[in-house]
């Protein structure tokens, strides 16, 4: 006999096996999920969930696909949160403080309550990366926010109305495009390819009889 626990899905009580994730528990209870379910592996942010445990005042946030149910868990999912997403042309912006002031000025209203960090489903130091963004330290913001899955729980808890995940992706794109050094070998290789430098080598290989290709494959040198 499986061990069962009581969970309250949107306030309604269900008895479910104790080893299920919250997502598994919802399905066990009979929900055919449409919203609030994406990759089911902790990468897409579709299943942000907030919960309380009976007699505990703390409000917890998690991903439903990555969190095991507990007895007397009160669950509400947050399948969508209205983040502010400003549009910009990545080719026309510059990686300086101006861009943040222009697109997301509310980050300067951060009151330092740290509710964002406390609620992050990925355990990130969200307030810290917002501080980096304020100072125009985009590389640090990018690094600190790198594991963000844009579920939006941080923003739902923010009294300063910041859309943290959108600030973070702007910082990452600026970092990836402008701040990290150019990969010169890549630039060169693309030029060589455009120049047709490898065309003959490939054509020669493609023309070979299959037995010869197999021999080449089976005896090819493998970089250590």
């Amino acid at each position, binding site marked *: 006999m499986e061990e069962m626990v009581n969970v309250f899905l949107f306030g309604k009580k269900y008895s479910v096996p104790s080893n299920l994730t919250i997502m598994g528990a919802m399905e066990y209870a009979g929900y055919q999920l449409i919203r609030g379910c994406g990759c089911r592996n902790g990468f897409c942010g579709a299943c942000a969930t907030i919960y309380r445990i009976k007699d505990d005042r703390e409000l917890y946030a998690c991903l439903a696909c990555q969190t095991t149910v507990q007895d007397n868990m009160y669950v509400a999912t947050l399948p969508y949160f209205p983040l502010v997403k400003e549009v910009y042309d990545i080719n026309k912006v510059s990686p300086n403080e101006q861009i943040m002031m222009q697109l997301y000025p509310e980050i300067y209203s951060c009151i330092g309550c740290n509710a964002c960090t406390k609620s992050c489903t990925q355990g990130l130091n969200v307030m810290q990366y917002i501080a980096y963004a304020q100072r125009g330290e985009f590389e640090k913001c990018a690094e600190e926010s790198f*594991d963000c899955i844009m579920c939006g729980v941080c923003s739902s808890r923010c009294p300063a109305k910041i859309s943290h995940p959108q600030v973070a992706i702007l910082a990452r794109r600026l970092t990836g495009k402008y701040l*990290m050094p150019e990969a010169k070998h890549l630039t060169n290789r693309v030029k060589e390819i455009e120049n047709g430098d*490898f065309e003959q080598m490939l054509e020669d290989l493609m023309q070979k009889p299959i037995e010869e*290709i197999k021999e080449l494959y089976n005896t090819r040198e493998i*970089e250590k």
Partner: protein
Amino acid sequence: MYTSDAMLESIKKVEATRPSRVGVLPERMTADEKEALLSQYHPDYKEDGFEVLQVGPNKGDKVPTELAALLQANSRIPGLNVDLNKVDYDVDVLVIGGGGAGSSAAIEAHENGANVMIVTKLRIGDANTMMAEGGIQAADKENDSPAIHYLDALGGGHYANVPELLKKLVTEGPGAVKWLNELGVMFDKAPDGTMITTHGGGTSRKRMHAAKDYSGAEIMRTLRDEVLNRGIPVIDFTAAIELIKDEEGKVAGAVLLNMETHDVMVARAKTVIIATGGAGRLHYQGFPTSNHYGATADGLILGYRAGAKLLYADTLQYHPTGAAFPSQILGALVTEKVRSLGAQVLNKDGIAFVHPLETRDVEAAAIIRECQDRDGGIETGEGLAVWLDTPLIEEIHGEGAIEKGIPAMLRMFSKYGIDIRKEPILVYPTLHYQNGGLQIAADGQTGVENLYVAGEAVGGIHGRNRLMGNSLLDVIVFGRNAGQHASEKAKSVKVGKLTLSHVEQFAEEMKQAGVESSIVSPKLLPNYTHQKDI
């Protein structure tokens, strides 16, 4: 947390052999050994997992039983009130699917001046691209070339790759990585800007580019941001349930279904791109899957009913290292990068029984053999599994290497009390990738005019087995390619009168062949209600 005595005993053996395994790897298998192993243990060779199609362009070919049931099922159209005279969306290019291929296609079509729209049954970014952890291949280092990349992929694919498609993949690889980098994707780089690249299973050069172990997520969220910046309309929670043709038999749009309200809508388009991804959620042969929730092969059904041919639909990829414990993450991907960084695959006695970087089909078959026939597996409660010795990574690369290189893996297991820096993890093959799919020419077009396909829904690029890192590459290269060609083609297309007669015709063919079905397709979503979470 490991609590069973058998697991704890076995971990002691793993720890005992660890020092002697640093820098020592089992021999790679010969071509003959691989062939013998695959034919006996790989699920693709299991005859009762397949069924021969009786209708459609691939009549006489075998495909997985679960896919056959959907290809030869009833259309959703007869139960609905579809009025083709009432056009809800009228666009140049309609992209079906909001993953990496669909987004890349939409960006390029937009760049080419087309009026392009994305429809997706979930949200943009709910896709296998988001979950690709390990990386993207491209031959951009001094000691590498597109020809070497070609040979690696061809051998890995059992020489079945369509040459012109593979050529495109490897030749446009470096350009694809550059394009992503210029969109702002943060690839792992050395301080001087050199891309940090590693091996994947079956590669002969270190050409795997990564963004920690969030490679696909970093690419997908960047593409999504770009789609939104460009103002490309994304009609989410809306599935395409049938393609529409015009009276000349050219594809001219799709019937759409709002997943929540069940409203039916008509999208007219000059060209259509199917970018619907894979099929892991069909759970072929009962395997768990690493795929996202919507991976139900919808595009294959749509295309097949419209007359597009499938290629290699009988070959699937079982990723050798799916999480096997605890049950909450059964089937979840444990990225190949874990092995690229040095983790070895061990049996219950702590013996490395296979080289960790064989191609995925060989690696998976070796694990299945070890568990089924060599008594090397560890009981998990859900079945047998083998160890992936993650602590070895820090023995090789020093402390901190795991947090820096595979933070997502560290996080996933830590939620269940397993510290992968200190303890090995239990793995078993998981249904990961659809090697086959709809057949295309180098311009991305199927045999049905104005119907294009990109991404995992395409068959042929990878032959009968795909190498790690060639899928992220394929969604970008062939996504962009389809977007460019479909938008160019759209400039000269004049759409005629819309019709769904091909759907009726397919139903008639089924009737003629005596094929009866009690289900409708495309499936759209798996049904897990009242079931265990898998």
